[in-house]
């Protein structure tokens, strides 16, 4: 059962991702991205990463995706939902991407991964919290600063020339 669910989610993720990159209408791409993000969140759950999954939905779906949609709307004179956008060098791009995937696939099957088993934790939040405020305090602070900088930068940039 779990196996089935897993593969369903995997398929949903891949399919919607394909839709994102292949579809010609921007808004549809954005909506397809929603499914991809949800799918990835699902995969996180399978990976016992409950906290990350939550964050994935909160930040990606709640934040980034909304931002993207706003972006789309702000940059197009919307007359209909069908905001078309063409692609280019699809042939060459496809070939290169495909061969890239082939090589990655070969690599991941051939690589001798060091695996060690573990039991499912009761929750990861506590562990992450401890780690963030002990070992990873500096990255945490830096990323906060970065975020702050990005916020200010974004605000300054989008204000335009005035």
């Amino acid at each position: 059962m779990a196996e089935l669910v897993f593969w369903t989610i995997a398929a949903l993720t891949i399919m919607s991702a394909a839709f994102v990159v292949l579809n010609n209408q921007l808004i549809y791409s954005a909506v397809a991205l929603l499914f991809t993000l949800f799918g990835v969140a699902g995969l996180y759950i399978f990976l016992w990463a409950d906290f990350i999954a939550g964050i994935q939905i909160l930040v990606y779906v709640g934040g980034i995706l909304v931002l993207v949609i706003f972006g789309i709307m702000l940059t197009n004179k919307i007359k209909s939902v069908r905001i078309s956008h063409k692609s280019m060098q699809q042939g060459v791009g496809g070939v290169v991407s495909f061969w890239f995937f082939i090589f990655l696939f070969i690599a991941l099957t051939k690589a001798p991964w060091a695996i060690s088993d573990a039991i499912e934790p009761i929750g990861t939040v506590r562990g992450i919290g401890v780690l963030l405020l002990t070992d990873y305090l500096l990255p945490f602070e830096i990323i906060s600063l970065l975020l702050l900088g990005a916020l200010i930068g974004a605000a300054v940039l989008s204000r335009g020339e005035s």
Partner: protein
Amino acid sequence: MIENPMISFPLLILFLPLLSFLILIFFGKRLPRQGDWVAVGSIVFTFLLAVYLFVQMLMNYNPDFSNSASISWIDLGAFKINLGILIDNLTIVMLLIVTLVSSCTHIFSLEYMKGDIRYNRYYAYLGLFTFSMNGIVLADNLISMYMSWELVGVSSYLLIGHWFEKDSAANASKKAFLTNRVGDIGFFIGIMLLYSAVGAFAFSPIFESISTGESIAGATLTIAGLGIFMGAVGKSSQFPLHIWLPDAMEGPTPVSALMHAATMVAAGVYMCVRLFPIFTPGALTVIAYVGGITAILAAITAITQNDIKKVLAYSTVSQLGFMVLAVGTGVYTAAFFHLLTHAMFKANLFYCSGSVIHSMHHALHEAHDHDTDPQDMRNMGGFKEKMPVTYYSMLISTLAIAGVPLFSGFLSKDAILAGTLAFAQHHPEHFLLPLFGFSAAAITAFYMFRLIFMTFHGKPNMKSIFKDIHESPNVMTGPIVLLGTLSFFIFYTLPSNFNPIKDKGWFTDLIVPRNSSVPGSLTANEIAEYAHHAHYLAMGLSIAVASVGILLAVLMYFTKTLSAKNISARFGFLYDWSLNKFYFDENYNRFLYQPFMRLANTVSWIDWEFYDKYFINGFGRLTKLFSNASGKFDYDGIDQGLVDGFGRVSGIAGKFLRNIQTGRLQNYLLFVVAGILVIIIAQAF
């Protein structure tokens, strides 16, 4: 050491005038009466100290008295200079002369310089002069003597140039300093020669070392002596450097009396007397000739001068020549004796001339006449009644300088002439020396009486101002009377002798000649012996020549039985030469000064216009040429050919590759990924 009055008093005498100089130069303008009382007070005080020393000397009556003290000035281990003072009878007498004449000058100037625009400076410089002159007198070594020597030159420069608004005064001061410097160079070379041989600057080690004859002797010593003597030539205005002294009369008359008659110019003679032991017979011969020639040349020049101060100036030069002649013939104490008497009567003569000029000046001022020269004797005449004190005092001094018995000059001049005569008797080849001496003596008598007659006798030549001529005030006549009195013989022959024609007295007792340090020279005794033998002959001759001189002057200028015009016309070129001072200035100007300036200009031209412009900048131009050539090669050959060849190849390649550079980010990304693929493939195989 400092408690000893024989050391501390001379030091006071030395430094008090310096103190006065410093006070006046910095605060003179702010002091009441511009501070003249500071200067006069300090100098009179030093005079009293000098009198004290003099009295001490008379009371001791010790001809060998000597006292010295010194401090270390430079001490580098081996190289040492000690500055010190040396006090013996010679020094004390000289100090007395300097302070006496200096005091008189200070007092005399109170009236003479009244209302001058730089009154305080004038007194300050007098202080500086007195300090440096005392420095020469007291020096116990060559270095301090040389230092004071130069300082005297500077104060002379400042005082001659006191009225620097006049170009002639400015020129004269510069000329005086530079001419003195020429002499100083010789002096300094002499010092270096002595030091490098002896290794000391102080007099006594030098004398000792010379007397051993090992460190320095022969020609070197002669040259060293002549070098030192060159200093005296400059300072005492001897031929051929005598040209500055007559010009120096541009300074105020009291200054001329102090410096250019009594003290500063006597410094050279004083130095020769002080350093007599180092002169070799060869050097002494040269000295004697220099003195002789100076005496006669200057005397001849003095005959025709009309400026009252110029006559006195040439007379001074001539008298200094006498003294140097005496040093050269070995009777150096006679030279010093003449220095002493000459200081008194010549200073007095200058004061008297100053008094006359002062009076003339006032009279001209009253008459609103600014063009007439107040110093020209042709504008004077008949002042005898108007200025009796000046007249009689001047007459006495004139009698003294002419060498008339009963007066001081007779004694000293006689001693010199006796020495000269004795010298010639023993060295007949030098017969010219007494000839110079006696003829100069005759001429001196002549021109001095010419001066007296032209100024005080006869009819007034300028009626317009005659009524305003009057006797000078007491501060001026005081020094005149004092120094006039001192021209009598009696002051020099006391206490043992009242005979007016014998020079024996305190002076000859206390200032005794010493043997020369140079091995093989005549001893002092021998010289004295010879001179003694010649004494009566010399005395007779000197009285005779003086009478001839005076008689001629009387005939020509008093009774006018002989016409001066006719005689001058008969002598023709000699008169011309005398009137033009033997063309010294003109010839120096043409053969020394002008070529020198041309040399300077040429050197400067070579330096700036030629050497720098063409040679140094030529390097620059050469470099530029070279760099142009290499630049051409660089550009055309290497750059255009080789480097641009690469460039062109890459240009073509670039044009081809440019097509790939689309400027689209995604293209580049594609290439990146493709590149990664290629790498992976390459890795795989």
